[in-house]
C-alpha cells in the first residue's frame, strides 16, 4: 500500500486587506512588495496585499476572486480607517475589532462574525453616510465603529475557512460633519500609523499550517485521545513536526490495534526520541 508522502510545512502567507491604496502605501513600501499583475495584488514572500475598493460588494467580490486563485493564504488581516459614533474614542487611536455587523441595508443583516472576543468594540459596515435617523441611532446598540467593508471580508473569510483580524484607525466622528478631503489628505499619515501598529502588535494569530491536515488525526476514529494526550500530540505537530510523523500515523493505522493503543504508541514513539513537548 502506498504511504503518504512526507509532510511539507508551507510558509505563512498573510493577506493584508485595505479598502484604499492610500491606507496601504507605507505597507507596500516598507515590506518591499511588488505589483503582481495576474492576481492584481502586491506581494513579497510572506505577505499578499489586496486593495479591495470601497463597500461591501467590492470587498466580497475582490477577496473571493483572489482566494479562488491563491490557496497559500493562511490568514487575513484587515487594516484601515473608520468612523466612530462614540466621540470618547480618541482620533487616530487604533482598535482591534471584536465583531462585525452589516447595517448596509434598511434592516440589519442577521449574520454577524466574531473576530476577537476580548475586544469591546464592534464594527458596523454601512453603505451610506451616518445621519440622525432612528435607524442609524439604533445602530449604537450594536457597535460604535463604522466602516464600509469589514462584514464583506468576514463573510468571504468564513466561506474559505480562514481566520481574520481587523484593526481600525479612528479617523473621524460620525456625529461631526467630516471633511472627506481632509481624510484623503491625511491618508499617508494614517498609513504610517497603521504600519507602526502592525509592526508593534501581534496582529497575526497563526504560526504555521501543516499540510495534509495532520490535525485531522484528532477526528480520526482509529485513534483515541484523552485531553492530555491530545495536548501532547498537538504540541508535537505545532512545535516540532518530525519528518516521520505522518508515516508513523499511516503505519499505526494499518495495524489491528484498538484506538487507545495506537495513540499510546504514537506518543511513545515521539516523546521518547528527545522531542521537546513544550509541557505546560
Amino acid at each position: 500500500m502506498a504511504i503518504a508522502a512526507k509532510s511539507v510545512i508551507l510558509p505563512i502567507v498573510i493577506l493584508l486587506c485595505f479598502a484604499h491604496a492610500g491606507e496601504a502605501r507605507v505597507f507596500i513600501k516598507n515590506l518591499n512588495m511588488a505589483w503582481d499583475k495576474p492576481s492584481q495584488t502586491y506581494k513579497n514572500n510572506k505577505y499578499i496585499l489586496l486593495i479591495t475598493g470601497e463597500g461591501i460588494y467590492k470587498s466580497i467580490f475582490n477577496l473571493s476572486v483572489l482566494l479562488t486563485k491563491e490557496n497559500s493564504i493562511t490568514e487575513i488581516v484587515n487594516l484601515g480607517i473608520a468612523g466612530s459614533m462614540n466621540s470618547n474614542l480618541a482620533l487616530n487611536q487604533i482598535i482591534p475589532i471584536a465583531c462585525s455587523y452589516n447595517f448596509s441595508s434598511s434592516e440589519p443583516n442577521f449574520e454577524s462574525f466574531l473576530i476577537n472576543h476580548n475586544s469591546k468594540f464592534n464594527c458596523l459596515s454601512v453603505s451610506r453616510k451616518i445621519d440622525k435617523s432612528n435607524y442609524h441611532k439604533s445602530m449604537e446598540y450594536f457597535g460604535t465603529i463604522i466602516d464600509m467593508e469589514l462584514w464583506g471580508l468576514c463573510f468571504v473569510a468564513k466561506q474559505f475557512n480562514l481566520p481574520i483580524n481587523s484593526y481600525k484607525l479612528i479617523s473621524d466622528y460620525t456625529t461631526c460633519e467630516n471633511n472627506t478631503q481632509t481624510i484623503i489628505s491625511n491618508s499617508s499619515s494614517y498609513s504610517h500609523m497603521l504600519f507602526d501598529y502592525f509592526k508593534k502588535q501581534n496582529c497575526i494569530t497563526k504560526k504555521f499550517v501543516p499540510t495534509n491536515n495532520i490535525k485531522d488525526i484528532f477526528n480520526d476514529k482509529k485513534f483515541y485521545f484523552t485531553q492530555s494526550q491530545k495536548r501532547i500530540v498537538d504540541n508535537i505537530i505545532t512545535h516540532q513536526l518530525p519528518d516521520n510523523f505522518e508515516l508513523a500515523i499511516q503505519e499505526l493505522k494499518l495495524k489491528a490495534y484498538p484506538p487507545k493503543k495506537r495513540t499510546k504508541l504514537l506518543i511513545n514513539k515521539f516523546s521518547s526520541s528527545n522531542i521537546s513537548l513544550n509541557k505546560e
Partner: protein
Amino acid sequence: MFQRLFVEKAIANQARTKKIINNFKHLPIIEIDNYQDVFEKVRKPYLLKRSQLDLFLAHKKGSLVKQTPPAYGVKNEPHYYFIHQYNCVYECDYCYLQGYFRSPDIVLFLNYEEIISEIDKVVKNHQNQKIWFHAGEFSDSLALSNLTNEWPLYFNYFKNNPNAFLEIRTKAININPIKNLQPSKNIVISFSLSTEPQAKNHDIKTPSVRNRINAIEKLANLGFKIGVHFDPIIYSQDWQKDFMSVCHKLFKNINPSSIEYISIGVIRFSKSAYKCYKTNYPNSNFHTQEINISNNNQIKYHQEMRFKLLKFAEEVLAKYLPKDRVYRCMEE
C-alpha cells in the same frame, strides 16, 4: 459583569425595576420600547458574553409556562417550566443555550405575578394531581436572584398549593436570597454537579464543585429539599474514580433524606447547539470522543457507552439512596 442595562420603557418606572437599576448606577442605562428591538435583532456571537454582556429588564409577553419535553423529570408526573429569565451568567462549554438563543445577553422578566398566575391556571387544570414546575430552563435560577428578589413570591404561592412542586435549578452558591425563606416539602432546590475535573474543564466561571456541595449542605441543614443533577456526564479516563469521589463528598455531611432525587444524564447536543459548541470550544475533549447522531437528531455517545456510564452512576448512587430516587434524564 454587565456592559449596559437596557430597560423597557413600560416598566422603567415600576418600583421593582428601579430597585434593580439602583444596583447598576455605574452602567449606561438605555430605555427601549421592546427588548426584542435589540435582543436577538442581529446575531450576537456567544463568546461576546466574556467582554460585552448586556442586561435587559423586560415584561414577558406570550407563553409564560410551557410543558417540558418527554423524559425530563421524575417519571409519570406532569412537568412544566416557566420562563422568568433568558440566558446565564456562567459559561459551561456544553450549554445548549449557545445554540438556542442568538444572543448571550441576559433578560430578566419582571412580571412575576403574571407568571405565577399562569402557573395557577395549569395547577387548576391538574386538580388533585402532583405537578412539577421547573425554573431555570433558560437560565440559572439562583445566580441573579439577589437582584430579582422573586423567590418569596413563588415560595408563598407553592406553600399554599401543596400538589404543585417547584424545582429551582442552579449551579450558583448564592443562597442568601432563599435561606431565610420557609422551606416547604414541595419546593426543591436542585444543584447541577459533576466530577471536579469535569467542572474545571467545562464549567467555566461557575462555583467550584466543593462550594456547590457546601451550599447544598447549608440548605439541607436549614430543612430545604435538595435535588442533584449529575448532568451532563462527560466521559474521561478517570471518570469512574472521580464520580465515586464526588458522591462520597456529597454524602459525607448530607443526610440522604434531604435529597429528594438525583437525576443522571449523559452529554447530548441538538445539531445547532453542537455546531456552536464546535465553533466556540474547538479544543474541548468531547470532540475527540466517539459520538454519533441518534434517531432524534441528538449528538451523543452511542447507546452502549451511555448506558454503561448511567449504570455505573446508578450503582454508585445506590450505596447512598434508594433506587426510586435516582432517575435518568432525557434517556428512555
